[in-house]
């Protein structure tokens, strides 16, 4: 057990999990996520089994690699493939670490994570973001769970299923309108962002 945890010394080593790089898959699409496991002792977990569950059902599994994720002390990880549900929507899955194979006694653990499944995209929406006539780079464009970042010319393209959406554009320092859209074919839209006044470094809260 690490010296700086508040957990009581225990015969069971505490396990914890992280799940990341979760995409927004289309219904029925194969996709992959990353799952990592850590023992409170920092012990090596390479080749150990990780399971993904939908309720009680195991929907995917993988084996942890031998090297920790960069930037971490002892988070052993795997890329696990799974198939998105056939219906669009939000689904809460869980990662579970199988403790059976470990030599030392470990407490089992599971950790919830969310996957948003979208309808299969049929059309492309091209969004151009400008402010004062100039393109806005690295603005986030999103329509529901689908998102993209604008390139140097202020353009982002997103693939969407038919339907109604709210187009939201976000970049710190800019004010942008929320634009309702109906998508039933490929389309283009330009969003005029307003540059927020540059805050004086002492514009607020100085003594």
């Amino acid at each position: 057990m690490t010296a700086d945890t508040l957990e009581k010394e225990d015969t069971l080593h505490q396990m914890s999990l992280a799940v990341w790089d979760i995409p927004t898959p289309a219904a029925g699409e194969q996709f992959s996520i990353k799952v990592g496991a850590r023992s409170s002792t920092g012990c090596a977990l390479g080749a150990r089994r990780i399971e993904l569950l939908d309720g009680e059902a195991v929907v995917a599994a993988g084996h942890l690699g031998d090297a920790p994720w960069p930037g971490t002390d002892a988070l052993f990880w795997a890329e696990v493939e799974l198939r998105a549900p056939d219906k669009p929507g939000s689904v809460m899955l869980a990662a579970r670490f199988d403790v059976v194979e470990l030599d030392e006694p470990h407490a089992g653990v599971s950790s919830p994570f969310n996957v948003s499944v979208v309808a299969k995209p049929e059309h492309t929406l091209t969004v151009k973001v400008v402010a004062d006539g100039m393109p806005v780079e690295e603005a986030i464009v999103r329509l529901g769970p689908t998102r993209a970042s604008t390139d140097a010319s202020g353009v982002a393209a997103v693939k969407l299923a038919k339907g109604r959406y709210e187009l939201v554009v976000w970049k710190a320092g800019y004010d942008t309108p929320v634009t309702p859209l109906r998508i039933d074919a490929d389309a283009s839209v330009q969003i005029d962002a307003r540059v927020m006044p540059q805050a004086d470094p002492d514009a607020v809260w100085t003594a």
Partner: protein
Amino acid sequence: MTKQDFSRRSFLTKGAAAGAGAVALAGAATEAGAQGINWDQTADVVIIGAGVAGLPAAITARELGASVIIVEENYDIGGRGMLSGGRVQLGGGHALQQKFNIKDNADQVFLDWVRADDAESRYSDRDLVRVYADENVSTYQFLLDNGVEFIEKPIGPVDASTLPRIFVTKEWHIPAEVVAPHRNRNGSGLVRRLAESARKKGAQILLKHKMTRIIREKPLSGRVLGIEVKADGKNINIRATKGVIVATGGHTGNVNFRRMFDPRLTEEYQQACQPYVYQNADGEIAAMDIGASLWATAIQTSESGAAITKTRHIGCRWGYASLVYETDSQMFPQAKATGLTVKDWQNLIMVNQFGQRFWNEADDSYKFFNAAMAYSGDKNKLNGGGPIWAIFDADGAAREKWNTKPPNVDPDGWFYSADTLSELAGRIKSQYQKQPMPGAALTETVARYNSFVAEGVDKDFKKKTPMHKIEKPPFYAAWATPILHDTLTGLRTNTSTEVIDMRGEVISNLYCACESQGGYAQHGLARCLVFGRIAGRTAAKNTA
């Protein structure tokens, strides 16, 4: 005279030598009614606090011929003004406003600062605001006359003002004498210039002299005679023949005192400008001990202005607004970290001690503070909301371009990292985190937030289009508990700054100006400067 008394006077004589000849030792004179107090020093006007009100009070009193002693508990002058951005909100149509064709006058200043539609102004004592307005132009000229330099760029209107009135002073030109250099602490130029002028004009500034008592003829009646101070372990009595001016700067750092106005403000909340100044209510308490009253207390809890602010620099003990103690600051050994400056609140979430979100992190309003201070569920601590932690991941740190290592963060109680959220929760140890944060709760909170990000809707707290999942290891927890800032109420005075007692009577020879003065809650330097001058003038002219 005892041997001890003699030694003490010898010390003081040497200490006073560098000051002005205007200050005289009083010998062993015993004041009638003062229960045989031996006065170690005497001046016409004795000022408690060498800050934004005390310094102009001293200069004004000296200009009127009064001898002046300022006692200052800190090792250097300036108080919170030293760490201010130097934004002086004086209007009325002064020369610099005229230069920018800003049509202002005293009546407009008054009307702005008694506005009913602005919570910062509606609770003020309008008699005080009227005097304030009438003295804006002369106070601006006073600053120029005493060497204060301004950057010629108007800012505003802000707060209740309807016209641009803010001009920023120039930062002091010697970095080693700026307590927080490189960070636009332009208030240093204001207080250094005023201290320079005060000394030139013969005011004596006694540093590391802490006022411990205001001495009145009788505990709750008669004139104020002087003060007792502690310096280098010794008690010293300083006689004030014309009066004592309380210019101590507010109560925000005193947990017991601040909770008179709002019981939620328990010990976990940070205070702006610590550890250079503490705003410990000693002026208010000493004055109240001899009968002084408070005034316009509604302002303190009006949920307006800058009484409470969000932490802007997370992962360090003190993360107040635009103030950062860089590694070459005199304060860095105490501050221990510069903090991670938050540019976009989308890059993190904030949770309470139990790992639960409590509000939209992007909100800067009092709704945020009310949620942060809400009952957290801690059965052992019913008041206050407990510690607040910012939670973010490797991607969030990358987007903010944060280096999550010291000296940017302080791992000794204010910043933690871990491979998983569960592990992170267990690592958080702080003097204010009385129990471990449950790892499962933090994991659940983040999973729920991530589902909001995926769907683009924050179903719990309506954060506008939550943008970024918190999912990529490693994970971080950074101290982000709100900061208490302005003291907005204090001692009751009349328009001449004479302190008023609980029965509405003047306490003779006691004056107050600064954030410790109640009745007018304008944020910033201007009201302290204006009423500091008035206090110095009233005291110097006192013939009672």
